[in-house]
């Protein structure tokens, strides 16, 4: 019926632009591999089963946090409270565990505490018009404050606690040398599940798509009749609960914690998300990118240490590496845009 319109609307090449959105994430993959290869070539210890194993085991928590942080950032928001939520849930969790509360119950309480802070952040943002940055900054102070009010002691799990199952390493390949063992633990599995959950949530649920829509334009999303408010609550609730989960994994892993745990982790998580190609102003990005970002972020520290970077220079070098990374992504994207 409408040949006139049909003719003039020539379909551009399929999926071209979608690919471009993935470029930063792909760049993260390439750079991660390059870093591993460089580490191996120079120091000979990076392509070792032991190294890979502990990369995942030691950073399961960061992977979870990176997934958590991806949600608010996709909407153009942020959740600065994740590190502090790790602290308060850890402190409460350990206190309870030491009081003889069964592990499962402790975990549930930890997750609930996370949920309370997520709900608080959501309420401040949605009901009182606070910007996410400020709202979660407040809940961060609050969570950390309450954590230190509860206890400033270094708390350790009682013997034979049921948390240990998360940390117990499962060896797949058990070589005589520990550096050649391939192993993982339940924490890694939890992280993996979180990643899969994040992927499905963002790409295969309506709420997930609404998150992207809000990131594109909140007012449009509202006028399109999407449940923006509910979604915002979901986001901050989810990120806080995931932070509590990260806390479970982390504390189980090292067997102890205290109120100062998790200082600065929110920034590590943000860095991971950004390295993974998610744009801080929202609308574009992938959970898988964030996971890669977390791995890249994790590998920066051993690299600087192996390079023998003088102590004063380490933060500069880490900063520069992230910068190079971001600039590189930017360049790749610019080239993509031109083509």
């Amino acid at each position, binding site marked *: 019926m409408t040949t006139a319109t049909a003719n003039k609307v020539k379909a551009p090449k399929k*999926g071209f632009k979608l690919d471009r959105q993935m470029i930063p994430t792909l760049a993260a993959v390439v750079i991660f591999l390059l870093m591993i290869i460089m580490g191996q070539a120079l120091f000979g210890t990076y392509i070792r089963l032991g190294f890979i194993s502990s990369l995942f085991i030691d950073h399961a928590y960061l992977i979870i946090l990176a997934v958590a942080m991806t949600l608010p950032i996709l909407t153009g928001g942020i959740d600065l409270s994740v590190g502090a939520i790790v602290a308060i849930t850890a402190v409460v969790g350990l206190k309870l565990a030491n009081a003889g509360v069964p592990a499962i119950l402790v975990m549930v309480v930890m997750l609930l505490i996370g949920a309370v802070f997520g709900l608080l952040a959501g309420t401040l943002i949605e009901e009182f018009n606070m910007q996410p940055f400020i709202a979660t900054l407040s809940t961060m102070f609050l969570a950390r404050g309450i954590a230190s009010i509860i206890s400033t002691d270094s708390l350790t799990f009682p013997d034979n606690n049921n948390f240990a199952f998360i940390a117990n390493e499962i060896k797949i390949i058990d070589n005589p040398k520990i550096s050649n063992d391939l192993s993982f633990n339940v924490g890694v599995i939890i992280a993996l599940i979180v990643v899969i959950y994040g992927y499905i949530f963002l790409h295969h649920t309506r709420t997930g798509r609404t998150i992207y829509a809000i990131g594109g334009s909140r007012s449009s999303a509202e006028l399109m009749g999407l449940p923006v408010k509910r979604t915002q609550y979901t986001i901050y609730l989810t990120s806080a609960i995931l932070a509590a989960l990260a806390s479970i994994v982390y504390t189980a892993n090292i067997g102890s914690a205290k109120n100062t745990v998790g200082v600065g982790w929110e920034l590590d998580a943000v860095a991971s998300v950004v390295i993974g190609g998610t744009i801080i102003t929202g609308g574009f990005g992938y959970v898988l990118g964030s996971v890669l970002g977390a791995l890249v972020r994790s590998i920066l520290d051993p690299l600087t240490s192996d390079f023998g970077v003088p102590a004063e220079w380490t933060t500069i070098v880490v900063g520069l590496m992230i910068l190079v990374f971001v600039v590189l992504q930017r360049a790749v994207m610019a080239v993509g845009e031109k083509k």
Partner: protein
Amino acid sequence: MTDKTPIVVMKGITIEFPGVKALDGVDLTLYPGEVHALMGENGAGKSTMIKALTGVYKIDAGSITVEGKPQSFNGTLDAQNAGIATVYQEVNLCTNLSVGENVMLGHEKRGPFGIDWKKTHEAAKTYLAQMGLESIDPHTPLSSISIAMQQLVAIARAMVINAKVLILDEPTSSLDANEVQDLFKIMRKVRDSGVAILFVSHFLDQIYEITDRLTILRNGKFIKEVMTKDTPRDELIGMMIGKSAAELSQIGAKKSRREIEPGEKPLLEVKGLGKKGTINPVDLDIYKGEVVGFAGLLGSGRTELGRLLYGADKPDSGTYEFNGKKVNISDPYTALKNKIAYSTENRHDEGIIGDLTVRQNMLIALQATRGMFNPIPKKEADAIVDKYMEELNVRPRDPDRPIKNLSGGNQQKVLIGRWLATHPELLILDEPTRGIDIGAKAEIQQVVLDLASKGMGVVFISSELEEVVRLSDDIEVLKDRHKIAEIENGDTVSQATIVETIANTNVNGKEA
């Protein structure tokens, strides 16, 4: 007709914004199976009325009943659940997502593993096809299609909800004649299925073509509800503007062509100006006092060419001479410095600076050319603002209101004032009359002619061929990002001439 039971009844709706009563006791009744138009000048309160119905704004007084039930929606979502689908005046979609997703957002087809993307995209395709967009791949990013096409996408989106009420706020303002016809076909089909359609447009022809019933607003007040077929045009215009139609300044028939004197140097002369992927190299001359129209279908590259002339995009080929001098127009600043101004078609994203006041919006371009540290003296500023508010009849006449609170049409007028304040020698107007009421449209057309007669060169880009033909001395015809013809306007030239040219010429300039 009146024996039908109404589906929506709005009574005594009053909405007050700080300082303005946008609506004051307005009634509106929608019947199933009818197309109902909200009529009124810019700022009369049409969009506000719509937002009141869908719960975007809270009403201060009045009542809304939908299907006999009193309702107070808390936003589009609630309205949608009650069967009201809305396409707002400013396109409200998400540019970061694909076309298909925008159509289906919130209504994605689900399978056992959450959203089934294949089915969703297929569904999107059928809805897009209804709007004549069957050749758009639903995976295309929304940001890569034009505003006009986005408008169609927004309408396709409204079709997804099996609505009982369909609200379209100025859906046709950026469409060309063909698309308007396509849209009307769909509207008729929808109407015949028993849906009530609320329609807003400033095109009287369209109103008479498609609507059954009219509600007329003026200055936020309810004037009258009438049947379209019983209301002559003059009477309608009279009710809308509050004075008799005859008083409307009439723009004469076709403007007489400005003759170029032999040996006269053009004001602007570009050769081979182009940018890969957006517009193929174009030669173009514009003389002082000349109005040059750009005609073409949607996506033909008119906007792109305008943006190249203004330096909003960087050309990658061609030469550019202005006033006999070679210039390098690398960005809008240099363009303005060279006395070239460009008024965008994308008012919302590239035009208004929403939170700034009308005054600031009007002065900002002039200020930019003067430099940050050379503020415009207050007296001069006041004079400029007063002058253009008056000349362009901006309402309300309060320069200290944020521009985002003005109605769409009045925003457009402020923007035109902004460019005129820079005293350009070449003014590029991209869809300047889009969304503007009949009175104001005539005013703006008059302004264009006046400016030209004072020696300004004007590029006039519009999807309404009628006004292009009426105002232009020369018409550049574009197709598929090529300039395919240059038509000297004259008595023999009509809209049909241009349509034929587009149909019969291929991009190499040869007869097809």
